C-alpha cells in the first residue's frame, strides 16, 4: 500500500475531508434511526459506516460535471458528489421532493444535476454503464471523467470483465473504484474469489491498478487526485482498489451474526476513518474543540434533515404512471 507523506497535507483539505465523512456518517446514522426506530424508511438501506473515506476521498477529486456511477451502498458517494442531503433523505423516505420523486429509494438514488447517474440495485451492472458514460463523453469531445464505484463482490460478475475491457480498448477516461469492504452480503468475499482480486484482475486487462488503505482518507484523496489528473490528460482507464471494512450488517436490518464477534469492534476501535482523520488533524494543530464542532455541525444538519424529510408528504398518486415512457405512456394507456 502507498505511504502518504503527512508533511505535504493541506489542513484545509484535511478538514473538508473530515467534515464530509462526518456528514456521511451522520446522514446514515439518521437513516438507520429512520428505518429502525421510526419505521419511516420502508425498503432496504445499505449503510457505508466505516467506509466514508472512500466516498469523501474519491469524490473530492471530481468536478460537478464529472460523472459518478454508484452502487446499492451509495449514500456516501452521492452526498460527497454534491447531492442535497434533504432531497436524499426524502428519497429514502419515499417523499415528494426526493431526488427521484420517491420512485427510486435508497438503491436507485441519483442526482443528475451533480453528475450522479445512479446507484444500482443490480450488483456490477454499473460497470458497463460507467464505461459507456465515458464513451459518450469521449464521442462528444468533452473533457469530463467518470468514476465507477463497485464492491468487492461485483468483480465476480461478467460486467466487471466486459466493462473494464471495453474502457480499455476504447481508451475511456474511467476511474474504476473497487470499494473492498471484504464482504459480499453475508459471505467473506475471499472465500468465493479466485486469484488475487480486483487489482490483479484489472492489471491482467492492462490497467494500472493502485491499492490503497481505504480508511486513510488522505491516501485515498491523493490517489484519486493523481488518477483524475492522468485521466484528464487523456490517460487510459485505471483501477483504484480501496481496502476498507463494512462495520454494519449488509443492510440496516442485518445483525451480521455470521462474522467473528470482535471483528467489527476491532475495526471501530483501530481503523475508523473519522477517528484517524481527527488524529491527523490534531497532529496538525487543530484543537479538539474545532474537531468537535465539525462533528456537531454534521449531526445537527442531519437531525434537521430527517425531521424535515419526515414532515414532507408522500408523492402525488398519479406520479406512479409518469416518466415510464412517452411513446405508449401508461399515463395514457396502461392496458
Amino acid at each position, binding site marked *: 500500500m502507498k505511504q502518504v507523506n503527512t508533511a505535504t497535507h493541506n489542513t484545509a483539505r484535511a478538514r473538508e475531508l473530515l467534515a464530509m465523512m462526518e456528514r456521511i456518517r451522520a446522514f446514515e446514522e439518521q437513516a438507520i434511526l429512520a428505518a429502525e426506530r421510526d419505521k419511516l424508511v420502508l425498503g432496504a438501506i445499505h449503510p457505508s459506516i466505516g467506509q466514508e473515506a472512500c466516498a469523501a476521498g474519491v469524490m473530492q477529486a471530481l468536478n460537478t460535471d464529472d460523472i459518478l456511477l454508484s452502487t446499492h451502498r451509495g449514500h456516501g458517494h452521492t452526498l460527497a458528489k454534491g447531492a442535497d442531503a434533504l432531497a436524499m433523505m426524502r428519497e429514502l423516505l419515499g417523499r415528494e421532493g426526493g431526488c427521484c420523486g*420517491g420512485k427510486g429509494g435508497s438503491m436507485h438514488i441519483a442526482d*443528475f444535476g451533480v453528475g450522479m447517474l445512479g446507484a444500482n440495485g443490480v450488483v456490477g451492472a454499473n460497470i458497463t454503464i*460507467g464505461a459507456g458514460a465515458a*464513451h459518450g463523453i469521449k464521442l462528444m469531445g468533452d473533457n469530463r471523467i467518470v468514476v465507477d464505484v463497485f464492491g468487492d463482490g461485483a468483480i465476480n460478475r461478467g460486467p466487471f470483465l466486459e466493462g473494464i475491457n471495453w474502457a480499455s480498448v*476504447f481508451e475511456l477516461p474511467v476511474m474504476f473504484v473497487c470499494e473492498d469492504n471484504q464482504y459480499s452480503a453475508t459471505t467473506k468475499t475471499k472465500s468465493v474469489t479466485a486469484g488475487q482480486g480486483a487489482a490483479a484482475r484489472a492489471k491482467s486487462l492492462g490497467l494500472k491498478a493502485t491499492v490503497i488503505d481505504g480508511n486513510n482518507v488522505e491516501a485515498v484523496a491523493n490517489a484519486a487526485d493523481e488518477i483524475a489528473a492522468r485521466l484528464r490528460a487523456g490517460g487510459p482507464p485505471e483501477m483504484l482498489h480501496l481496502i476498507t471494512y463494512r462495520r454494519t450488517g449488509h443492510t440496516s436490518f442485518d445483525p451480521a451474526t455470521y462474522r467473528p464477534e470482535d471483528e467489527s469492534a476491532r475495526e471501530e476501535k483501530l481503523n475508523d476513518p473519522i477517528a484517524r482523520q481527527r488524529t491527523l488533524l490534531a497532529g496538525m494543530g487543530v484543537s479538539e474543540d474545532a474537531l468537535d464542532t465539525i462533528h456537531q455541525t454534521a449531526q445537527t444538519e442531519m437531525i434537521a434533515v430527517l425531521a424535515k424529510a419526515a414532515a414532507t408528504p408522500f408523492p402525488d398518486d398519479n406520479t406512479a404512471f409518469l*416518466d415510464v415512457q412517452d411513446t405508449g405512456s401508461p399515463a395514457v394507456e396502461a392496458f
Partner: protein
Amino acid sequence: MVKMTYVEASREAVREMMHADKTVWCVGEDLGRGSVFGQYLGLQEEFGPDRVADTPISEAAIMGAAFGAAMVGTRPIVEMRFSDFALCATDELVNQIAKARFMFGGQSRAPMVIRKPIGLWRSSAAQHSQSLESWYVHIPGLVVVCPATPQDNYSMMKAAIKCDDPVVYLEHKNIWQMEGEVDKSLEVTLGKAAVRRSGDDVTLVSWSDTANKCVAVADRLATQNIHAEVIDLRSLWPWDKGTVLASVRKTGRLVVAHESVAVGGFGAEVVATVAEQAGDALRGPLRRLGAPRSLVAYAPNLEDQVRITEDMIEKAALETLGKSAP
C-alpha cells in the same frame, strides 16, 4: 418513390439520421464490415470508426455502455446481431435501460434503438431463429417495433431514432432482400398500424414477416370473392387497438397470426382485447395462429413443423367464415 430492399431501407434511414444528428452513432460487433446482414455496409467508411464502432463480443457491455452513453446525451443505435444474443444483455435492457427514467424520477432518458434481428431464417436452428417480441412488450419502459416492409423499415427506423424512449427494433431476417417502393417523405407514428388490404369479410391481424403472408392470403381470398382486411400492427407497444377494434366491428371476424410461440404470445393480447371490447360484434369463431410451444430445428422439414404458413392462415380465415379450404 425509390425501389429498395428491406436491408437497404433501414441502412438508408440510419445514414440520413446520422447526417442530420451528430449525436447518433452505431455500436456493435463487426459493423465495419456491415454486420452479419449488410445493415451497416459503407457506414463506417462514411462516418468513421467512432460513430460506427466495432466492439468486442460483449453483448452486456454493448448494451450497458450504449445506455451510459445515452444518459450523457448521445443517441446510440445498438446492434445485437441476432435477437438470441441480446439475451446476454437482458439485465442491461430490462433492469437498467427500461427502468432508469422512472427510477430516477424523470432525470434521465435512454434514446436508443436496439436492433435485434428475429425470425426463422434458412436452417438457423434453435439459437438463431427466435422471435421474442412478446417478452419485450411485457416490459414497461420499452417501445417494441416489428417492421415488415422496406417502406416501414425506412420510416420506422427514422421514427425510432427520433424517439426519446428506448425502442426495441426487431427486423426479420428472412426479408432482408425483400424489394419495395419507398416514399422517403412518408412519416410513421410509432403505435399506428398499417391497413395493408381493406375488406369487409374478415380481419387478419399480424406483424413482421407474417403480415406479408397475410397480405398474400388476402390476395388469394380475393380470388374466392372474400375480402380480408389486413392490419399490420408494425409496433406492438404501443399497439393500435383502435384500428383493430374498428375493423373487427366492421368484419365481425378475426384471425391473428404470428411466427412466435402462440402460448403467451402477443396474439393472445389481441384476441383478449377484441373479446373484451368488441366481443358483441363477433360473427364467427376467433382464430389465433402461432408456433407450437416447441423449439426450432435445423433440418428443413423439422423447421417447417413450427412455421405458420399462408395455407394455415387461409384455412383459419375461412373457418371464421364457416367455410373450409377449397
